[in-house]
């Protein structure tokens, strides 16, 4: 492991100017549960770590039914699942967050880091996508927003330009009769990276039998977490029944373009994309029916 410099940034401006100055040599440190391991194992290199935890804005977690949820990039996962109102409003996100590491890791790991790390198998990203989450990005040219589904560009690569970093994730408030869920497949019951992950969200009509709109997103079946747009489109206006679920699951499966690696085969992943979409969609519908 190489030595590196460490700077505790106290403002967004300071972090941006350091990032701009040092370019590829600099990396943002949030919880560090991915980054420090990668540096130790020689899988990433950095001569400067910019710790953003001292910046007040990136530590803010706020939620209101009117404006939705804002998650500062350095907010540990544990804070999210610890608040009943957030658990209620964003069930798919909470499913995913609860899977990221054990108790100690959840006290340190952040959603911002999980997203910026841009793993194709990241548990939180498909869930963020089906909740319509948006990235709040700071950079030399000021602030910009980007939908989460457009944030990851390749395994381990994201859409941030030199000098930019993720300040917060904004998740809009859910409409009425909304439900969401995330499911992943792992060979054990813990301590694994998703072989396939699937998230679904639906908004039902008042009677709870027709889907007004919805989204399906998949993890670990493409170079980036995937918004299955055709599958989502196929949900709109359809009765929430077994036939629809089967069809949508097949459409989602079609969107999956997995590889074979030591965690699973391409054929297995393709098959699981179908099974998990079916199961997660069923789950999201159940939840939508039980919310007001």
């Amino acid at each position, binding site marked *: 492991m190489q030595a590196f410099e460490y700077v505790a940034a106290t403002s967004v401006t300071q972090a941006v100017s350091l990032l701009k100055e040092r370019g590829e040599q600099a990396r943002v440190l949030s919880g560090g549960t991915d980054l420090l391991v990668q540096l130790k194992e020689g899988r990433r290199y950095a001569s400067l770590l910019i710790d953003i935890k001292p910046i007040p804005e990136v530590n803010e977690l706020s939620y209101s039914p009117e404006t939705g949820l804002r998650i500062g990039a350095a907010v540990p996962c544990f804070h999210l699942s610890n608040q009943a109102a957030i658990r209620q409003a964003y069930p798919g996100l909470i499913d995913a967050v609860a899977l990221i590491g054990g108790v100690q890791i959840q006290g340190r790991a952040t959603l911002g880091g999980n997203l910026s790390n841009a793993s194709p198998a990241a548990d939180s990203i498909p869930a963020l996508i089906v909740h319509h989450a948006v990235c709040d990005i700071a950079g030399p040219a000021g602030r910009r927003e980007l939908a989460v589904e457009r944030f990851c560009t390749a395994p381990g690569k994201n859409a941030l330009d030199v000098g930019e970093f993720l300040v917060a994730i904004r998740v809009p408030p859910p409409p009425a009769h909304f439900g969401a869920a995330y499911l992943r497949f792992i060979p054990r019951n813990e301590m694994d990276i998703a072989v396939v992950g699937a998230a679904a969200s639906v908004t039902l009509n008042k009677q709870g039998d027709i889907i007004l709109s919805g989204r399906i997103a998949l993890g670990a079946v493409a170079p980036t977490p995937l918004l299955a747009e055709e599958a989502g489109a196929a949900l709109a206006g359809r009765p929430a029944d077994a036939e629809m679920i089967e069809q949508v699951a097949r459409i989602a499966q079609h969107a999956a373009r997995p590889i074979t690696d030591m965690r699973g*085969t391409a054929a297995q992943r393709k098959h699981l994309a179908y*099974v998990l979409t079916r*199961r997660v969609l069923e789950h999201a519908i159940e939840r939508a029916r039980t919310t007001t």
Partner: protein
Amino acid sequence: MSGENQSVEQPTYRVVGTRPIRPDGVDKVTGRAIFGADVRLSGMLYGRVLRSPHAHARIKSIDTSAAEALPGVKAVITGRDFPDPQNKVAASGEGTVNLRSLAHNCIARDKVLYFGHAVAAVAATTPNLAEEALKLIRVEYEPLPVVLDVLEAMRPDAPLLHEDLRTNEMGQRSERPSNVANHTRHERGDVEKAFAEAAVVVEREFRTSMVHQGYIEPQNGTVLWNADGQISVWCSTQAPFDERSQIAEILDVPVSKIKLTPAEIGGGFGGKLSVYLEPLAAMLSKKAGHKPVQMVMNRAEVLAATGPTSGSCIRVKMGADRNGCIVAAQAWMAYEAGAFPGSPVDAGAGVIFAPYRIPNVRIDAYDVVVNKPRAGAYRAPGGTNAAFASESVIDELAEQLGIDPLEFRILNGAKEGDRRADGPVYRRIGFIEAAQAAQAHPHYSAPLAPSRLDPTGKNPAIKRGRGVAAGFWFNWGGKSSAWASLNPDGTVSLIEGSPDIGGSRASIAMQLAESLGVRFEDVKPAVVDTDSVGYNDATGGSRVTFGTGWVAYRLGQKLKQQLKERAALLWDVSPEQVQVEAGMFSCNGHRITIQELAAKMHETGGPIVAGDTFESEEYGPGFGVHIVDLEVDTETGKVQILRYTAAQDVGRAIHPSYVEGQLQGGVAQGIGWALNEEYVYDADGHLLNASFLDYRIPTALDLPMIDTVLVEVPNPGHPYGVRGVGETPIVPPAGAVANAIYHATGVRMTTLPMSPARILEALGKV
């Protein structure tokens, strides 16, 4: 002799069979125990190893000059710094080791033979500096064709790992070079005739992947090669004396120059019977000007470059008559030895049909080198692979005959006087008793719901099944030495040389306490270095509670005899007249306790000390019978274990909690092996899953509480009837799980691990 317990009068024990707190418990739970990586010496340097990125390549050159020039680097070594030992065989655990292979495995000479093979090593003032220095070593390789699969390696046109390797073909040395190091055959009766006459014959081929022991503590070694030529070694080992000899041979120094201190050990399971880092640390120490050097592997190194157990290909054919008697069995077994000969295939051949009485048998066993790490011992080495194959076939035979699978095993079960397929005749064994205990267990008669609905509630996707399987291990005795000395307060210091990997400090001290007639708490056991106690065979082969226990029993008897003499002296009677009962000595109305005698020892002739060494040539064969309930999600291929019961003939459980722990631990590892553990290589032989993230041992959430049934059929070869218990329980799980998967889904799995991807494939879902 026959019947129940022949070796001792029907006993009522005071200590044996109780569950005292282990002497090493407090230090372990408070973190005070000193493990190898906790050793700190003044001026200590840190060593790191440069490992081969190729699975098979010729080393053309190594340039270490840039690494040597880095400030803080104190020594750099390569294979050239070491003498080249002869092809000489030495003891290693229950088996043997070729010292030249071992030396070349510790550090490559002309060729690297597997991904991760050590090529050079550096000692520097900090671990990070040593790591950075490795990047400055330039190695020029000429990559060679790679062979990873055991069957491909056996082909005559396969790439050769060792140009000088010839097959030992049933005692004859073959002429052509080959990757097949050895072929052994065990044969009895006429299998062809018996198969032709059998009412039912089942034949299948099974494959298993290379798997690792997964001990939590990585290999480590701290060595000071002093200026006077004395070498001190601290390391994590099951075999202090064997490893001392290995280091001596690899360094070409007299064995007496080396003192090896076994540190506390964080798991071994057979994986710590031979050296990896110690000779490198020694050579670095010498080259760095006699500074101590510490080397600790990381997890990736442990997985890539220590000794896992063999992957294998096993073909089993068994036939039975109409009455359900097994009439013939045949096995063809080929095991991957890794880069150097020495797979546990012969042990596998001993295990494969061991529980059964079979008149006609043929077993062919092949030891085959491939470009993977040199196989080490792993808990019942070779046994799990073998029983997975035979127990699957037996299950199928029972099914075809319409006989309950446990009933079928009991019907064909081996008893005292029966001859094992690979030769020896059994003395008193408890296979039948273990199988009957499983049969009588409430688990076996509990109803099992056939399936439950999947989370959508629409498909009966989750199927349940129950499976059973049996297993066997040899359980040798070996050689042990120990000392015991009486303290003035009547307690006993026990000095032993068997590293404690499974609660043996307690189980050995308990046997001394029982034998002498003192309380367990009055015996203070210590495991010491190789200069401070006589020779001990390795802690391996489930031998310590049995073999070292024998010595503890004899020490107790010897101390007791001396105490009788002291009492006789006090009372002016002959020692034979003195009676002893539970630590109380008496004669003609005189009574004196051990404590009182101890207090008087300096008035009655001085210190009371006993030393002893003993070799038990007996084995204590152990049999286990397991029952598992599980469910298979037929849409994802995932298996969840619901209930598990392990019944085993344990001879005599000295400390039942630790015996139960051994059974549970063996089952946990066996389930991991059955379901998810495997070495995943790419086509070029790079290990892809060298971490505990992707080498998937079971977590606490993957296993139910494992029930145990301790069946006690005393071993006639031991004063308390002890049989080794640690290895048998890893033998049945893979077969039991495979049989349960079949009964759940109707599909026979013939490849380990039975991972979700493989199950989906077998179910025709992908």
